[in-house]
């Protein structure tokens, strides 16, 4: 039922010369799990805070359920928000922290009690209701912060980097828990993070931002497979996509130093030709997992093999990451764990060109 519409939203802070958020357009469907992702300072938190009503909107319209709410105060927007540092009141017990919003809204005692206890049960906090936040672990505090939002039963959840204060292991488990919670409550959720893994694993749709502008909106699969520009290609996926400056000539691409020359698959070459890139500079991108070292691949595609020098190799267990150099260009390959190589050794890298990406060398926008 709830639908949030952001129409041409701009934000400029007082005394700032530049806009922090520029022309932000997005329509969020009911029950959707949206993740805003981007490097720090990209305007994702600002946008979230504008939706919450904690920041003024400089220009544009924000609608919740078809009603313009630009000038509504936060409490009238009926949203619940989880903060990065949890913002649990240190002088109140877990119970009082969770009941706070309900008490302010004058719910009756039995209703508050029922809701708090229900939420505590869902989050496994029933034993801790009488404790103060200082007596809880990081993960438990995080849960209380979630609980405080759940009890409100608000139709919209906003989460501002809720997991960034947790250690790596806890982050993974809380990630799954938040996803589960969303499946259970089906509340429209907007989640802000700088961690692309969180974005990929949790989102229905990801909004990738940079310097206050939306770079791409799409499902995790879409943004991974078809990044709209070099930035998205490099930001989503770990390790990041490899990029080479190349020249497209005939049906082949070659780097400027002549370290490699590769044949572009026919369908791709046709598109590049049609778009007028014949003989022009381009940015060629390929993901680390689309670089191969296994003999089967190298034997099957002898024309797609380039030699490289290993700089560092990292064994992660099941897989290893080979940081290598082709000429001066750095390249990362994600290969089988057994394919670990010594530093300085020669390496044959097979390029899976069917999975290559091409970007305009000036605008950096995806071409193919």
């Amino acid at each position, binding site marked *: 039922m709830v639908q949030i519409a952001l129409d041409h939203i701009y934000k400029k802070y007082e005394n700032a010369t530049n806009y922090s958020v520029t022309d932000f357009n997005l329509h969020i469907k009911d029950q959707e799990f949206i993740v805003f992702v981007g490097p720090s300072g990209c305007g994702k938190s600002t946008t979230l805070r504008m939706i919450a009503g*904690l920041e003024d909107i400089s220009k544009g319209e924000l609608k919740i359920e078809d009603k313009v709410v630009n000038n509504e105060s936060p*409490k009238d927007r009926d949203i619940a*928000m989880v903060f990065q540092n949890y913002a649990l009141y240190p002088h109140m017990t877990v119970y009082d922290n969770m009941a706070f*919003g309900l008490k*302010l809204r004058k719910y009756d005692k039995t209703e508050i009690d029922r809701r708090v206890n229900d939420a505590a049960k869902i989050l496994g906090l029933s034993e801790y209701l009488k404790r103060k936040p200082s007596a809880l672990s990081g993960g438990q505090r995080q849960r209380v912060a979630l609980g405080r939002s759940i009890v409100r039963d608000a139709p919209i959840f906003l989460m501002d980097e809720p997991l960034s204060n947790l250690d790596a292991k806890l982050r993974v488990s809380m990630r799954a828990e938040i996803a589960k919670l969303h499946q259970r409550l089906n509340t429209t959720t907007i989640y802000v993070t700088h961690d692309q893994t969180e974005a990929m694993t949790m989102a229905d749709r990801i909004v990738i931002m940079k310097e206050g502008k939306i770079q791409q909106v799409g499902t995790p699969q879409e943004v991974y497979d078809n990044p709209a520009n070099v930035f998205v290609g490099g930001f989503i996926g770990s390790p990041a996509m490899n990029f080479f400056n190349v020249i497209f000539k005939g049906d082949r691409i070659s780097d400027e130093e002549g370290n490699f020359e590769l044949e572009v698959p026919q369908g791709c070459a046709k598109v590049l030709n049609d778009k007028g890139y014949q003989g022009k500079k381009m940015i060629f991108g390929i993901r680390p997992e689309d670089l191969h070292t296994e003999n089967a691949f190298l034997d099957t595609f002898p024309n797609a093999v380039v030699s490289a020098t290993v700089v560092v190799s990292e064994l992660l267990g099941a897989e290893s990451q080979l940081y290598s150099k082709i000429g001066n260009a750095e390249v990362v390959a994600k290969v089988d764990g057994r394919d670990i190589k010594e530093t300085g050794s020669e390496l044959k890298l097979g390029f899976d060109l069917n999975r290559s990406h091409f970007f305009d060398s000036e605008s950096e926008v995806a071409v193919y």
Partner: protein
Amino acid sequence: MKNKKQGSAQWLSLIFLIVLGVVWITPLLYGLMSSFKSNLEMQSVGFKFLPINWLFTNYTRLLQNTSNTPVFRWFLNSIVISGGSTILVLVVTSLSAFAFSRLRFRGRNVLFMFLLSTMMFPPVMNIIPLYKIMTTLGWANTPWAMIFPAATGVFNIFLIRQFMDNIPIAYDEAARIDGASDWQIFRIVILPLIKPVLFVVALFTFTGSWNDFLWPSIVFSDINKMPITPGLKLLQGMYVADIPTLMAGAIIAIIPTFILYLVAQKYFLQSMSLSVGVKG
């Protein structure tokens, strides 16, 4: 080698502090001891620390004389004045600090700077204008003459504001989203969190008001209305030759602040670190 050096440094500082402590406490203890001596002993015997005969008559006489020097009355007046000042200061300064720390309004920083700049003037400059104001309002010889001016303590506002600035704004924002008004944020969220600094302000205000001498001795002329500090001055005139009784009066006057210090030592120390901007 290093440990030895550190050890001797510690010994040196210990000795230094003991000497300093003795220098500070000797006059106080001498005053206390003298209050138990007879006037004759005080004047005839040379310097002697302990009384030869322990007498309590100085105290009883002092407390029983209610016509010229109503010490007990002064004591009560002082409690009313200091207590009243403390309550008013807490209310006014915590609210102003909240405004300066949390509310956004035009000219906030300019106003705050202006307030701070008033701290640069020596308080004595205020006395004559203030006296004029008090007599015009008809507050001379009433507790208000001391209680109201105390509420303008800019330093206290500054202290509380600094403390509040260290409380994450996310608390306010979370409360706001949950539907709290500014007043509710102050009352339910911020006030419980600033208790330590409020305690410090309360202690400073109470002792400051209790020990203030210059202002009350100007603004109070009615013997029955004045607090104990100008009262002590009257005692001096009355018992000019009776040092032990004077001492007894002084000892009575320091009892409340002394007890307060014993009870709240921890907070006094905390106040020192607060005032240099380190969170206690």
